[in-house]
């Protein structure tokens, strides 16, 4: 990894107007629900909000207009995403479809797949989940064992996915499956786009330690999908998934998931804060500002058509550390009980409990550090 060149974040168009329009739209359309829903808001499921957001043109922004998209630049989309996250908008329903499934279908999908799925994604009405992890394939993704055998009628799928976020409300799953009999590790894998109402699919909830239902187990029992469900090239699933993970790791969600807590801390501290709280606000602000620069630069590199695998991993590693550190440091300094009902206490409680997942989802800390080490020329 050479010295870090800061890719200039230079989106086309009037970015100040884009921000102002979106903020005005949010002032009218963002639900004024529980403050806790504003934290970790890319896990907040609200299909009404997603449909309204899609109708306003803020989903599928980079997709071509012929598929219902906005024909806009990836960095314009980045600006919209960071505004939505900073505001704590409930973007969970469409999040995965907008961030990675849509772009992946555009890049690797057939014309039929594009026409069938992309307009619904851009409208904020069609939701997707990612079928990667399995009971025996967590960090070691190449150990995937779910099989799809090509028959005269189509692909016959057998196996199980697990930790599948949003499978219970999603319409489609983009799954990594073993299509080549007897293949090992990262060879012989392909991506299939599976309609989740296909017979033979069973979805069971896994309730997390916060009491939330985000995860699921998904079972495939002789599930038949058409030949046209194959996305991209047969046997190239590993390469396609790796590209997808680049989209997943570097976004502003890696440092803005807990932004609601920083907002509440600043508001609770007031204009003339206690010196210790002022110092904490200063340190958290410096980290967040730096993370924003790293994330924007990585987005610019991605938009320039380059592969920012290592930079994306740096954003994820530092962003996860920042977001896990923040609630711990806030708790160490503010007064108040665990069960208090003010905004700060509620956010603190929710994020302390949610934060262990931050360095697990999208690749564990250990895997991410391994990617960075390889980028440094170690191994």
């Amino acid at each position, binding site marked *: 990894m050479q010295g870090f060149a800061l890719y200039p974040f230079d989106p086309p168009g009037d970015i100040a107007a884009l921000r102002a329009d979106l903020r005005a739209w949010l002032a009218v359309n963002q639900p004024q629900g529980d403050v806790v829903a504003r934290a970790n808001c890319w896990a907040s499921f609200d299909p009404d909000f997603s449909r309204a957001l899609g109708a306003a043109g803020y989903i599928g922004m980079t997709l071509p207009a012929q598929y219902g998209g906005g024909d806009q630049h990836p960095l314009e989309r980045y600006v919209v995403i960071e505004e939505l996250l*900073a505001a704590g908008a409930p973007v969970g329903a469409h999040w995965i479809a907008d961030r990675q499934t849509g772009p992946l279908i555009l890049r690797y999908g057939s014309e039929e797949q594009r026409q069938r799925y992309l307009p619904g994604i851009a409208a904020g009405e069609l939701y997707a989940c990612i079928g990667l992890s399995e009971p025996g394939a967590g960090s070691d993704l190449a150990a995937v064992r779910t099989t799809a055998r090509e028959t005269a009628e189509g692909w016959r799928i057998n196996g199980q996915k697990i930790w599948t976020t949003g499978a219970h409300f999603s319409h489609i799953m983009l799954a990594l499956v073993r299509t080549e009999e007897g293949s090992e590790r990262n060879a012989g894998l392909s991506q299939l786009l599976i309609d989740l109402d296909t017979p033979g699919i069973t979805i069971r909830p896994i309730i997390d330690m916060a009491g939330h239902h985000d995860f699921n187990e998904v079972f495939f029992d002789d599930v038949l999908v058409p030949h046209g469900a194959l996305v991209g090239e047969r046997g190239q699933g590993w390469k396609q998934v790796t590209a997808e993970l680049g989209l997943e790791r570097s976004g502003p969600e890696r440092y803005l998931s807990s932004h609601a807590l920083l907002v509440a801390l*600043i508001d609770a501290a*007031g204009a003339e804060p206690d010196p210790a709280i002022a110092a904490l*606000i200063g340190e958290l602000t*410096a980290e967040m500002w*730096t993370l924003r620069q790293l994330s924007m630069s990585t987005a610019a590199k991605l938009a320039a058509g380059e592969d920012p695998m290592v930079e994306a991993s740096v954003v994820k*590693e*530092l962003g996860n550390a920042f977001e896990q550190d923040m609630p711990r440091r806030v708790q160490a300094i503010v007064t108040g009980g665990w069960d208090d009902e003010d905004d700060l206490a509620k956010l603190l409680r929710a994020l302390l409990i949610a934060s262990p997942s931050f360095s697990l989802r999208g690749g564990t800390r250990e895997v991410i550090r391994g990617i960075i*080490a390889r980028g440094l020329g170690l*191994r």
Partner: protein
Amino acid sequence: MSAAHDMLCDTARAVFAEAATAGIAPVEEAGFGLLLVPEEDGGFGGDWGDANAVLQIAGVVVPDLPVAELIAGEAYQPAATVSLMAGAMGQALVLSIEHVNTRQQFGRPLGKFQAVQQSLAVMACEVRAVEAAAAALATRLDAMSLDPSAADFEIAAAKLRANRAVGVVTAIAHQVHGAIGFTEEYDLHRVTVPLMRWRGAHGNDAYWAARLGRQVATLGGRGLWEAMTARGA
């Protein structure tokens, strides 16, 4: 980067190498004091992006010479120190990678051990963060015609972030080097000792944290985001 910028960096490397033994005189004679002086006033007409690059080289090659003071006035010293620190941290990382890829123990290079790989990944993240902070600060200063008071937020955030990286970067660099990194003959201390010094120079952690924290408190929770996005991108 432009050809003029590349040429500037090549010149800085050559002149600083000479200055490492000869002292500041060659740096003065080469005209680095005119780097930021406008061309119409007989200067080089450089921007802070140029200063950032030159000072990163100075942070590696001549950390003990007053290059930052020669290039810019007192109000710029916190920003200049961030650049020196970014350069020195980058060098500490380069030395560490070279060392673990060549030093063999237990029959293989140290860099083959996962514990060492994970440590260096942590260090690399800190170095990249400081490099990004230095670059973003340069972008802001240049957008504001080098007015340091218009970049007060960025100076505070960048110097604070750089300060906080020093402990992690120096500790890991020395740890992976083992005893050789603790010797006078080996080059690591030429960057780690200056890093320790620069953390306390032109505002330590507490100074910038208090200053930035008080500034943010006046903005309010939502105001922080609005101010940050109004200041850049």
